Every structure is written in C-alpha cells, then in structure tokens.
C-alpha cells in the first residue's frame, strides 16, 4: 500500500484522502471501512470495492453455506496477495440458552472449518480467522477451539486469531484480552446500545492491550434500509462509530454501488454534521424501547423470567404498535397466569434503567385480549 508520513493514529493519505488505521499489534494498516460481503453474491460489487480501495473484506463460512467465500475466492484470483486482507469466521454448536459449547464442538471439527474456508477462498492463508459468536467468558476460553486456532496460526494457515461478539460484549472483549491468544476482536458497537459506555470502555482496554478492534452492527443493529418503520441514516451511524479512535475499522455491509460509494465517502471524511448528530439523537430516543439483549437481567429475577423477551413484547406494543406480534411472543413464552408482581421489591437492575417489573405488568395483560380481536 506504499509508505507515507505517519500523521496520527488515523492516517490520511494526501493523494487518496482515505483514512487508515493500524489494526493493533497485527500491524495491518487498513482503511477505516471494511466491506462486509455477507449479503451480496455480486462479484462485480466486490471487485469495485477492492478497486476503489476497500482493502479488507469480511465474510463467514456460514454465509450462503460457503458460496460467499467461494465467490470472493473467484474475485481474488490473480490479485497480488498483499493487495487485500481477508477475515472470515466459523462457529461450532453451542447451547442457545447458556452459550456454552456442546460435545460435538471438537478441535477436529474446528480445524476442518478452517481448512474448508481456505479451500473455499482458494488461498494459502487467511489474514484473520474469527472464533465466531461468543457471548460467554467460558466460551472465549474454550480449549478445543483455541487449540485449533493456535495450531492453524503456527502452521501458517491463518495470520491472526480473532473473536466475534454481539452480546455481553464487554465480558467477551475482556476475556479476549486476558486470554493472550486473540489478536483481534470484532464486536457490535453502535450509537443505540444502552450499554454503549461499557462497550466503549472495553474497546479502549482492548486497544490499549494491543488488540485490533473491528466494529460491526454499526447501523444501530439494523440492516440498511430494511425492516421496521424506522430508518437509520447509515452515513451518520458509520461516522459515529469512527469518532472512537480505538475502533480501527468498521464493517459496512452493502449490496448496491450507491451504498458502496456512500461508504467510500465516509472513508475519506467522517466528521459528523450537526444534522447527523440530531438524527442520531432522535433515533437513540426511540431505542428507549429496544432491549439490547445485554443479558444483565438474567439471573437477577427470583422467578427466572425471560426478561429480554418480555421487554421485546413491550417494544412491539409501545414502539411498533404491533399487538399481534406482542401477543404471539407472550403466548410462546408459556408463562403461568400470574408470574410477576408478588415480590416485595424487584431485584432486577436493568442497564437501561427501565422499571422492568412495571413494564412486565403492563404488557402481560395482552394475553387476556382475544386474539381475533386484535388480529
């Protein structure tokens, strides 16, 4: 990529005007935007992104059952190996409720995943291989996967070991720091997270410890221009994440050339305008109904209630006015007729500072409304 004056932790090349940051101790100098390839099967879009300077591509073995990696592999044929960096990821079966690995999560199974990714991509080595979707400290330290990754690194199949998380992020990030094995963390980080200050602090600690920090889900947890009635200004959301110098690059998933060009513009200038700040402030207010799934409440309730699900039902009623979805969710939880309100005081301390007990008692009565009346 050439040598230029080291201006600051964010480099801006005079000719290109693209901002670069160094991914921790990996030493990989990459643009502040990474292409998230997961939603596209369009090789010409990937080519255009690479040609325009998006040096780093992010994929996963599960995306389109490996065909996403294979498509990228076709695009990369013939390109000099040092003209791009690839991150991919794989996971093994775990218990959905506890996040702990099941018996079939073996070192051999994970080694096979790494080899499959190499074959799909047609590469001799992968730059960053992520231990995917971790939300427990114990899982971050899961030996069979760590061993598989360390052996792969020693064998030259992967250059660096990463870990991804979009739940309990501070716990996982700190586990990554403590492990002394992970080189990169890939974490959900956006302007709407109610536990954003804790995530920000953990990111700073990771960067201080020399880990590379990659942010994802930066558009408030939404995908671009889709589901639900709210529309997030993607440009503003991307810029917000880049205000944090400890975030070395952010993954932007795009499926059109226009979206790509928007992200290329952010790569060059990510100063937030006043209008963008106002937009984010308003969008965050709406998120006062959005349970971030941090899981802090679990275990606090004396009756072990599924509080994140109940908060989601509350959001459906008060946020989206979708009573049908709220009622369906309440029924699916199979809770007894009376289950909240008889504790002398509620021991749940929500990070959002919500009155969880009051919200539960508000929304649970929806079960008593006949379904055909609200359908």
């Amino acid at each position: 990529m050439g040598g230029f004056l080291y201006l600051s932790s964010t480099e801006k090349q005079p000719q290109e005007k693209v901002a670069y940051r160094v991914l921790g101790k990996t030493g990989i100098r990459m643009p502040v935007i990474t292409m998230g390839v997961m939603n596209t099967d369009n090789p010409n879009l990937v080519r255009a992104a690479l040609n325009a300077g998006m040096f780093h591509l992010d994929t996963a073995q599960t995306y389109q059952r490996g065909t996403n990696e294979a498509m990228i592999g076709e695009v990369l044929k013939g390109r000099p190996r040092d003209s791009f960096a690839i991150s991919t990821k794989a996971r093994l079966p775990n218990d959905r409720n506890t996040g702990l690995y099941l018996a079939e999560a073996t070192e051999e199974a994970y080694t096979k995943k790494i080899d499959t990714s190499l074959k799909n991509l047609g590469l001799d080595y992968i730059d960053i291989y992520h231990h995917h979707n971790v939300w427990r400290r114990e899982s971050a330290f899961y030996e069979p996967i760590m061993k598989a990754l360390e052996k792969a690194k020693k064998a030259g199949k992967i250059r660096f070991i990463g870990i991804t998380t979009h739940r309990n992020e501070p716990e996982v990030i700190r586990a990554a720091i403590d492990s002394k094995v992970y080189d990169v963390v890939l974490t959900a980080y956006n302007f709407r997270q109610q536990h954003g200050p804790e995530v920000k602090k953990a990111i700073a600690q990771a960067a201080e410890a020399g880990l590379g920090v990659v942010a994802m889900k930066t558009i408030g947890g939404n995908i671009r221009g889709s589901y639900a009635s709210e529309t997030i200004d993607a440009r503003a959301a991307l810029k917000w994440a880049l205000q944090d110098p400890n975030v070395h690059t952010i993954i932007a998933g795009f499926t059109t050339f226009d979206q790509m060009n928007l992200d290329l513009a952010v790569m060059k200038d990510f100063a937030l305008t006043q209008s963008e700040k106002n937009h984010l402030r308003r969008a965050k207010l709406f998120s006062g109904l959005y349970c971030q799934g941090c899981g802090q409440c679990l275990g606090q309730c004396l009756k072990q209630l599924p509080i994140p699900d109940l908060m989601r039902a509350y959001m459906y009623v008060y946020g989206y006015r979708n009573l049908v979805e709220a009622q369906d969710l309440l029924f699916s939880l199979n809770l007894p007729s009376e289950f909240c309100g008889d504790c002398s005081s509620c021991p749940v301390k929500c990070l959002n500072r919500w009155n969880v007990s009051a919200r539960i008692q508000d929304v649970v009565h929806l079960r008593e409304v006949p379904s055909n009346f609200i359908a």
Partner: protein
Amino acid sequence: MKKLRIWKTPLFLFCLFLGAKSLGGPSLAEGKTVSFPEVSGWKQAEKPQVFSPKTLYEYINGAADLYLKYDFQNLQVGEYRNDKKASVTVEVYRHQTPHHAFGIYSQERLAKANFLDIGSQGYSESMVLNFVQGPYYVKINSYNTGADDQEILLTFARQVAQNLEGPSSLPAILSSFPAEGKRKNSEKFIAKDFLGYSFFHSGFTADYELLGKKFKIFVIEGKNQNDCRDMMERYLKQTENLEKKSGEGSYRLRDPYHGEVDLYWQGKYIWGTMNLDDPNLRSTYFQYFESFFKK
C-alpha cells in the same frame, strides 16, 4: 411513557384493533404454523422454537441479514432425539412468496450437489438435507446418525414436506431460460438490488458456458410495462447512456461495473446477457426469450 391502563375499555380495544391493522408488521399469527411430524423412533426434545424477523438474528447471527432481504416471515425449529443419542434438527423458514423461498434456497445451493426429488427441489450432503417447497425453505441437520444418515434425513424431509402447503414446483419463469449451454441448477433469484442497483428491484439469473465462453443470462419481471420503462430509464441514466431513447427493443450498454451488458425489453420483461461477446449467439438467445414470453 403512558401506561396502558385504559386497555380494558371496549373503545380502547377497538382503537388497538384499528391501530394493529394499519401499523402491524409481520406476525406469526398471520402465517401458517407448521406442525412437526411424528417420526418413528424419534422424540421431539422440546417445544418448537419460533423466531420472527426481529429475533432471527438470535438463531443464525449475521446470516439473518440475507434471509431478511428475502422477505423472511418466520422460522420454526424442531429438535428430535433418539435413544442412540443421535439428533435431528428441522428448521422451517417461511418466506413471503415461493419466489423468495426459492431465492434464499438458490443462494445456498451448490450447482454440483446431490439433488433430490423432495418438495420443489432438494439436495443432501453429509448430515444436511435442504429443500424448498412453496414459500418454505427447509433445512434439516443431523448429528451422530452414522451410516443411516441419508436415510434418516430423507425420512424426515418427506414427512415434513407432506405437512407443507404451497406449490411443489420451481418458479415458472425459470423455464424461460434457454437450455442450451445453461449450467444446471445455477439459477438464482435475487430479491433486491439486482445487479447492484436498487432500481432493478429483483431478477433471475443463470450461468452459461458455450463454445468456451462463460456468460450470464438474466430476466427481470417488472410489475408492468411502465415499471420496466422506469427501470430502463434509470439504468440508462446510471450508465450515462442518456442519448439512447428508452423504448422497447434491444440495447447494448457499457456498464462501468459490469462491462458490456446487452438488454432486450419487451412488455413487462427485461432480459439480458453479461460477458457474451458473440452477437449471433446473443441474437439467438434474445429471439428465444421473445418467443417464450409471447406464448
């Protein structure tokens, strides 16, 4: 935040009803509930899990984004165990239309898979069997099933397919692709942002190889002729071909991202080729499309 204290009044309930009708998003209640079959020798381990567009992410993480682009409606997951500690997981993804279910299925199938006559189409590999039927995309995974793996997967697939509604045929428009040179099972449906342009809302593609040349053929079905006119005009503007008149007929354009693209617009269809330099071959294929859609 106002509390829902007056919910018990009939007037308020009526207002809720009106509100839900006008503002409601996707709902499990609106969709069909799939009943998981009883399979001899297997017991359902727990009640089926259900995921909506908002919660799909909890089950399949980042892969959920692509399913949402294919108008995913809901997912039901059934887990089975037997007394030999083997397990089978059945995931039934319901999408808005059969096209959308085919679309996500086509994104994940490999052209050289072991194809099966299940539902509209299916395929299997070790510990995996996926198939599509109507608006449903079904994914079955097995663990510890040993030598009987494929037979077990087939048994489950057949029984699940019986419980599903919807046509058991692939989208009819796929038969509009000429057979000569087409790579079998390479057809895909792209539900949004076709060719990387938001104005080409959706399209079908297939890969071809003929006389040593590799190329793609695609078909876009607009809502009507005006919809196609709008798409063509936007594409001409995007590719800076404003001097070309937008009318039915053929076009040869230089796309800055896709290279040479040939299009033929007729009625509510736009079909085209990419990377096909042979003008005679292009003409033959276009004539084929023209006669197909005139039927």
